[in-house]
């Protein structure tokens, strides 16, 4: 069973999964983490993927982002079909077209904040767009801490650096995996507002995996996942609407 999601005009699709399945093990012990999932994410929007533990939301994100491969089906970043790419090509694609923010351990401890922000660019031996990078740094307001190592930054500051790194290459799409999961509510709120601004003001595309209704309410659209299937979706969410939907989903 697959529930079709909102139709988006192809030119506006930043990333999509097409009948994506991810199966672990085989025979008796077979686990279907993703079962024939088709979903698209719109360019210039802030999308969220929600679902309980084990629903497949992280797996979906990893597969679309080119960190993991599918058992069946296809994923696209923009127009590019990831299934036909070599490890080297996928790496290059992640470096240039995808940004990442993880829940924790986002930064390289031996590099300072600025070096961490420009890391994907440096790996590609490119200088990047200086003005853009400065604009990003200004937005996260960490100008005075750029030469600090991650161990000298607070958890919230570290996540801000991580978001800045994800933005630095001006990627097609940014994936954020529970970016506020390890933060107190104040710092978490800052990060979410900052991501919201990146979408609204800087015209970026973000897909965020979360299980928190408040976090999800910052998004333009939420895709709900359950047992490896798309269970539904919601546009213009509020925390109340999301909680209500989740209650309904649990029944």
């Amino acid at each position: 069973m697959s529930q079709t999601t909102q139709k988006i005009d192809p030119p506006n699709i930043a990333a999509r999964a097409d009948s994506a399945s991810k199966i672990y093990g085989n025979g008796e012990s077979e686990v279907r983490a993703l079962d024939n999932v088709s979903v698209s994410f719109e360019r210039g929007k802030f999308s969220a993927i929600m679902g309980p533990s084990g629903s497949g939301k992280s797996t979906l994100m990893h597969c679309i982002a080119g960190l993991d491969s599918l058992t069946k089906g296809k994923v696209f970043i923009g127009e590019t079909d990831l299934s036909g790419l070599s490890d080297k090509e996928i790496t290059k694609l992640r470096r240039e077209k995808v940004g990442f923010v993880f829940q924790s351990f986002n930064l390289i401890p031996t590099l300072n904040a600025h070096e961490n922000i420009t890391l994907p660019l440096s790996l590609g031996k490119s200088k990047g767009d200086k003005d853009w990078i400065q604009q990003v740094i200004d937005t996260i307001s960490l100008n005075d801490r750029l030469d600090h190592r991650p161990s000298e930054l607070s958890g919230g500051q570290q996540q801000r650096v991580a978001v800045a790194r994800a933005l630095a290459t001006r990627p097609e799409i940014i994936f954020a995996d529970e970016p506020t999961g390890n933060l107190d509510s104040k710092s978490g709120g800052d990060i979410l507002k900052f991501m919201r601004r990146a979408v609204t003001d800087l015209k970026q595309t973000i897909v965020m995996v979360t299980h928190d209704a408040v976090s999800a309410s910052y998004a333009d659209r939420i895709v709900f996942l359950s047992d490896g299937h798309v269970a539904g979706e919601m546009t213009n969410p509020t925390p109340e609407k999301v909680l209500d939907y989740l209650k309904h989903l649990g029944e």
Partner: protein
Amino acid sequence: MFRLSLKMTLSRRGRLLLTSLAIILGTSFLSGTTIFSDTINSTFDRLFTDVFRDVDAYVRSTDSVDTGFGDQRAPSPISALETIFGVEGVSAAVGDMQSYARVINKDGKPLGEDQGPPTFGGIASESSAGLWSVEDGRLPVGPEEMMLDRETAEKGKFEIGDSVRVNALSGTREFTLVGIANYGDVSSPGGATFALFDQPTASEFLLKPGFVDAFLIKGDGTLSDEELAEAIDAALPADAKLETLTGAEITEETTSQIKIVLGFFTAFLTAFSFIALGIGCFVIYNVFSITAAQRQRESALLRAIGASRRQVTVSLLVEALIVGLIGSVIGFITGIGLSQALSALLNAIGLEIPTKGLTINTDAIVQTVSIGTLITILSAILPALRSGRVPPLAAFQDTALDTVQKLTRRVAIGLVLIIAGAVALIASINGASVTILGLGVLGVFAGVLVLGPALSKPIAMLLGKPVAMLRGVTGAMSQQNAARNPKRTARTAAPVLIGVALVTAFTALAASVKNEIRETIGSSFRGDYALSVNSRGFGGIPVSVTDQIDQLNEVDQATGVGFIAAKVGDESPFVLVFNPKTSKDLYDLEMLSGKQSDLKKTEILVEADKADEKNLKVGSSLQVTLVDGRSILMTVAGTFKDAYGNYAFSRELFEDSTSPLFDSFVYIKVAEGVNDESARTAISAISSDLGIGTLESRDEYIDTQAAQVDQFLALIYGLLFLSVIIAIVGIIITLLLSVFERKREIGLLRAVGMTRSQVRTMVRWESVITSLFGAVTGVVLGILTGIVIVVSLNESGFSAFTLPIVNTLYILLGAFVIGVIAAVFPAWRATRTEIISAIASA
């Protein structure tokens, strides 16, 4: 708790494997050298037990000089045989001889190598007391017949009826081969070659007519060996200066003399096996430190659920015990193979040592396993104590991997050690003993190793700078990774440091010695050609041949120089013997007082420093005892600058002696107007007829002599090779553990766009920087050590330090290559890091 730690140890096969690898390598060299030494010793034990198996009593001269490598003894007159035969209880007696004789092969070259097993001439007799039995043909009779031992006959493809040329004291002669002999049960003792003659021929050709080395006696069974020896002793006239030993005594004495020589050698090998073991210790300690840090959470969890500090500490020590035992046992087994490799190495550089079979003593097993286990446990003590101190709360925190260490105390201790070492070194430069020198070197080494963690960060950052510039952010991360944990980097680099320092020091030392040899020969040798043999103090160029060359029309003058054991005052040195009449303008002793050409028969020359030490001046008297039994009060006739020896005799002293006299080298000056070709042809005619010796021009000769140092250096390099392997493995282990530890970091880097080849580059350069840190520090330390040793041993013959620039560059290049090689597997592992599991393991 014991069972728990046993389970925990065995469940981590990777860690177990890495730790054991370090122990296996460390102990295998120890086991290898022990087995090798045991095998040599038992080979000689068996040999001499075999050789003297049928000998009940042994008569020899009481005149001897102890050379430090066994006695040199005067010959005995064959006339004593009659007296011995007259003793009741003697059933057979025969003269025995083991003198220098060299068989010349059919192609005109001497059989066996210059550096190979000794070449002997001996007596073959029908007497049942003799050591040789006829295997084929018959015993030689008269001055034109001989036998060969079976192995030599086979090697030279000689058959009965062939004519064989043999070189000995009285020159080179041709004999007819009439028989093939066996020595006890073996075809040839220890690979030595034997040419056998009847007694009168042997005495006349090899030694001096009427003399033999000793007598072998067989009893008729009525007396015990002790009673027989006593009876013979009683029968020998008191003024004959002969003594009688039992068969057991002579076996024991011969074996123990050989063992003194072997002892030096095995002690040398053992020293290197302990260097390898020490280097292994660093690796083991490093592995335990890193794994203890990595399992901080596990230790904390144990503490949180109620384990005491002691229990946590003990659990790690139990792991060390298990790994130590397993590693040492495997190390012992690998050592068996290594002992064969050692044998091959010695053969390869021309130091052939006969070994038969393989001797594995229980002592060797016990020693290897107990030392291996002990050092493993010792290496684990500090990390074990540290993990006992982990607070239970650490179980719920992120592991603190990059702890900032306080280095103040370390720097203080390191500096104190270095200063103490430096003081000792300065003292030794000013004449303190070699022990002080050794302690000084040890102190500086220890100090540098203690200081290591304080040095590793700045030096790694410096070495990494060009890498960061060339390789961008990847290189910068290599640089940072090499510097991020200074203690770990220092411990990983320590084996490289020690290895490189030793290699550099020995290389510098060798270069200096070579230079010294060139200068010494250059200033003393004034001729055009040199004829030399490398016979290691046994045999050489008969002096009669030297005189023959001197008489050639093409030759203006030729003079020979030889060495002989003697007791001089309270010392037993090898004394230089030269011909004062012919040495003028050819062999210059660089006299400081007296005149070289005026040396009389009973006068002696003394090296200048030795003369100062012994307070000897021209005109002083010096008591000298020669191997042939003569005791002479000699007069000091002059002092000379350092040369091959501390004392010099005139050749005249041995004119009527029973001691065989050989020259080790002959210096030749050609007559005016004779060109190179005709000079070589004329001299070669004699030397090739002789079958031995190498004729070289002055320059060639100097090159060859200096190159002899290379053989020693090759041995040292070979022995240090295993230490290099351990150093490489040490880097591999550390890198593997670091890669494992930085799994999330690598996963993150891969996620944000680092390609696999960039990951490889990152790990490779970290490895190279670490290795180079060790090498650079080691080179500096090695050169300083070399300088100090050369300068402080100045009196013993060194005068200048030579820096081997090219070799030093090769060593640094080697360290670079080591870094690259060591990184191959860890880098591959790093590229296999699963991104998802790395970033998901929050």
